[in-house]
C-alpha cells in the first residue's frame, strides 16, 4: 500500500539526512543551530498564521451541537456542559474536549446481527489510545524543558520524578516512554487493521505517526541504549538561549537525528492536520452557547434578501381570500 510505505520511506530518508550531514559532511552547525532556529520560527509563525486565518473568518450563526437538555423551563434540569447557556459553561465544554476528549469518550461500535438488528457496544479504545498518546506527548515535551534552564525548574523536576517508573534501572525508565510507544503502535495498527480506517487513511495520516515514532525511538535509544552524554546538549541549548550561536562540545550523531526529526515535525505541524491542536478551541459546534433564542447572535454579513411580502401575497390572492372570508388590507 503506497499510502503506508511512502510516508515510511520518507521518515527513513529524513533519519538519514542528519546522519549523513553530520557524520560525513560535517554540517553540525547547520543541524544544531540553523535548522532548529528556523523550524522554531516556522512553527510559531505558521501556527499563528493558521489561527489568525481562522479567527478572521466570521461565525455567522450560533450552531452548537446540543448533546444535552437546553435551558428552558425552571423545573427542567439543564445539562450545562452539553448545552451551555453561559460563557463559562461553554469554556468548560471546550476544555472537556481539549483535556479529556469528551466526545470521543461517547464512542460506540455498531455491529450487525441476524434479524437484521443493529447493536451498539461501548468502545473506549480510541479514546484511551488518544488520551495516552496526547498526554504522554505533553509530559514528555514538558520534561524536556529541563534542557532549557541552567537549574531545572520545579515543575520539570516534579514531572521527571513522577514519570520514573523503574528507578532501579540506570538511567531510570520513564513511564511515558513506554506509554507513548504503546499508544503510537495502537494508533498505527488500527489504521492498518480496520478496513474502514484503512479506506479513510491518507499518507498524511501515517506520516506524522511514523515521524513521531522515529523521534521517540531516537530519543529512547540515546537515553537507554547509547547512553548519550547530555551535558554538551544542555550546554548547547543554554548557549543558544543566550543568543550566542557557537557550536560547543561533542554531540552524538543520534542526537542530531532526534533533533532534526523534531524540526521536521515542527515545520510540518502548522501546515497539516496537526493544526487540529489549535482548531479544536475554535470549533463552533462546541464553543458556542446554546442560547440563540434568548440572546440575539449577529451575523456580520447578513445579506439583504427580498422576500414576498404580505402585500404582494394579498395582491395575488385577494379575490380568493375575500371569498374564503379572510380579512384583507385593501378592498
Amino acid at each position, binding site marked *: 500500500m503506497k499510502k503506508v510505505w511512502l510516508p515510511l520511506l520518507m521518515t527513513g530518508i529524513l533519519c538519514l539526512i542528519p546522519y549523513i550531514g553530520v557524520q560525513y559532511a560535517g554540517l553540525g552547525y547547520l543541524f544544531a543551530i540553523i535548522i532548529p532556529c528556523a523550524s522554531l520560527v516556522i512553527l510559531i509563525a505558521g501556527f499563528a498564521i493558521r489561527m489568525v486565518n481562522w479567527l478572521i473568518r466570521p461565525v455567522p450563526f450560533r450552531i452548537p451541537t446540543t*448533546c444535552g437538555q437546553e435551558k428552558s423551563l425552571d423545573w427542567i434540569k439543564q445539562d450545562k456542559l452539553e448545552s451551555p447557556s453561559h460563557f463559562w459553561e461553554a469554556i468548560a465544554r471546550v476544555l472537556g474536549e481539549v483535556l479529556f476528549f469528551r466526545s470521543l469518550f461517547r464512542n460506540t461500535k455498531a455491529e450487525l446481527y441476524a434479524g437484521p438488528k443493529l447493536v451498539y457496544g461501548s468502545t473506549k479504545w480510541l479514546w484511551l489510545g488518544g488520551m495516552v498518546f496526547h498526554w504522554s506527548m505533553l509530559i514528555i515535551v514538558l520534561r524536556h524543558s529541563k534542557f532549557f534552564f541552567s537549574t531545572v525548574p520545579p515543575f520539570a523536576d516534579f514531572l521527571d520524578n513522577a514519570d520514573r517508573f523503574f528507578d532501579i534501572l540506570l538511567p531510570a525508565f520513564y513511564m511515558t516512554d513506554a506509554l507513548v510507544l504503546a499508544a503510537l503502535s495502537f494508533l498505527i495498527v488500527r489504521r492498518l487493521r480496520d478496513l474502514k480506517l484503512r479506506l479513510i487513511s491518507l499518507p498524511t495520516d501515517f506520516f506524522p505517526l511514523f515521524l513521531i515514532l522515529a523521534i521517540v525511538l531516537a530519543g529512547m535509544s540515546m537515553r537507554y541504549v547509547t547512553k548519550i552524554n547530555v551535558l554538551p546538549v544542555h550546554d548547547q541549548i543554554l548557549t543558544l538561549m543566550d543568543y550566542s550561536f557557537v557550536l560547543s562540545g561533542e554531540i552524538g550523531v543520534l542526537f542530531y537525528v532526534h533533533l532534526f526529526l523534531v524540526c521536521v515535525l515542527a515545520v510540518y505541524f502548522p501546515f497539516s492536520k496537526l493544526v487540529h491542536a489549535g482548531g479544536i478551541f475554535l470549533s463552533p459546534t462546541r464553543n458556542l452557547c446554546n442560547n440563540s433564542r434568548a440572546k440575539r447572535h449577529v451575523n456580520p454579513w447578513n445579506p439583504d434578501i427580498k422576500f*414576498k411580502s404580505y402585500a404582494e401575497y394579498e395582491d395575488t390572492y385577494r379575490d380568493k381570500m375575500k371569498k374564503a372570508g379572510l380579512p384583507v388590507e385593501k378592498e
Partner: protein
Amino acid sequence: MSKYVPKLSELKQEFEKKKPALLKEDYSGKEWWDLPVEFRDGNWCFPGKPEVLEDLGFSNPRKWAATDADWQLPGGWEKTIKDGLKSRLKRFRSFKLFLDTCVRCGACADKCHFFLGTGDPKNMPVLRAELIRSVYRNDFPLAEKILKGFSGSRKLTAEVIKEWHLYFNQCTECRRCSVFCPMGIDTAEITMMARELLNLIGVNNNWILAPVSNCNRTGNHLGIEPHTFVQNIESLVEDIEDLTGIKVNPTFNRKGAEVLFVTPSGDVFGDPGVYTMMGYLLLFHHIGLDYTISTYASEGGNFGMFTSNEMMKKLNAKMYHEAERLGVKWILGGECGHMWRVVHQYMNTMNGPADFLEEPVSPITGTRFSNAAATKMVHIAEFTADLIYHKKLKLDPKRNDHLVTTFHDSCNVARGMGMFEEPRYVLNNVCNSFHEMAENTIREQTFCCGSGSGLNAEEFMDLRMRGGFPRASAVRQVQEKHKVNTLVTICAIDRASLPTLMKYWNPGVSVYGLHELVGNALVMDGENKRTEDLRESPMSGFGEDEE
C-alpha cells in the same frame, strides 16, 4: 408500495451476508477515490423541473436526470464552483475549520444512518467530507499544494460533481456524527455548503426546490392557496365536532390576536399530520388561547435550509413579517424538526431583531419563557409541558391506553436545540405506557428517519428504507420487548416518512404526533362521551358496553 422500494427479503439477505461487518464489500487494496459513482433506481432524487428553477431564478434550468452521461453543466462551471467555495470559506469559519481540522480518526464512521444502512464507504461522514476536502486541498492551502498526492487531493471534474450530488444527497444533515467527533466537525454544515455549491450550477433535487418555490409563492411548501388552507382546517374542525361534540374556533389572519401559531403545512394537509393539528386545535380551545393562524406565514418548515443560506432567510422572513403585521405579542410554533433548527439557531440572526414582539408569557400560567426572550418564539412542547406542570389541563391518559408508545427524538430538535425532557414530560402525562428505545438511539444519539433534509421523495425509496434502518431496528426491539405499537414524534417529516418505514420494517407500528395524543387525552368541557380517538380508532376501556 413504490417500485423504488428494495425487496425486503433481498435487503435482509444482503445484511445477513455481511454481518457483523458493516461495509458492503471487501475493500482491501482499494482507494475510495477509485470507487465508481453509481446512480440506479431508488438512490437519487429527480432533479428540479425547469419551470421551478425559472420561478426561483436559479441557474441552469434544463431537463436532465442523474443517470444521464452528460449533465449539461453550464459553461465555466468549474470556476463557479471554485469561486463559490472561496466565498463560503470566507464567510463561514465553521466550513474552513471543518475542512482543515479533521484527523480522520474514524470515530464518525459507523455513526451515520446511511452508512449503517448501505455499507457504502463514502457514506462514512469522514469520507463524505473528504469528497470536498480533496478538491479544496488541491486548490487552497499552500503547504498541501506542495505535497499534492501525498495529502489526498484531486482535480475538480464532472465525475466529482456527480459524486457530490450522489453523496451530499445521502446525508440528511442530522448532525449525529458531530456528537461523536472529537473536533466537533459537523457534516451537516459541509452538506449545506455542498448543496449550495451544486445549486449554483443547476445540480439539484426537485423534492426540495418545488416546495421552496411553492413556499415563496403561496406561503407553504405544499402550495396550498389561502382559501384551500382555510377549508382544510375547517374540515378538521368538523371532524373534531363529529368526534367530541365540541366546536373549536380557529381564526385566520386576525389582527390583534395575542399569539400567532405557525406549524408545518404537512400538519394541515398530510396524514397523519392532520391528527396532530386536531390536537393543537383542541388544546387551544381547552385553554381558551387567543391565537390566530396565518395563510401567508402558513409554513413552519423551511426547505430553503436545504437549498442555500439566502433561501432559508427568504422563506423564514415571512414569520416575523406577518407577526408584525398582525400585531401579535409572540409566536407559538408547532411540532417540526428542521423548522426548529431554523427558528432556534438561525431566525433571529437572519431576520431579527423582533423588537415589535414581546418576551413570550403564557397567558394561562403566567410563565415567562425567558429562554425565548430574543427570538420570541416558543415550542409547543415547552408550552404544553408548562401547562401540564401547572395543572391547567384536564387530562385522562387512560384514553391512550390502546397505544403502547415509544418516542423518536427528531434530529434537529435533539442536536440543534437540545429539547429532550419537555416532550417526554408531556407524553408521560397523556399516556400510561411509554417505553424508551435503546440508549444509543435516543436523545442526542437519536437516529434520523432516513428521509430528512428534503430526501423524502418517492423515487428515493431504496435509500430511505436503508437510511431509516437504524431507527427501525431500534423500534423493532421495543416492539418485540414491550409490544410497542405507537411511535410518537415531534416532526412533520417524521410523520410523513416514518409510516412508510414502519410498514416496511416493523408492520404493526403506527406513527403519531405528540399533540395527537394530547388531543386524545384532553377532557373537554361539555364534550360527548368519547369512545374513539382522533383517528376514529376505538379506545380501550371506553367501549359502549365496557362501563
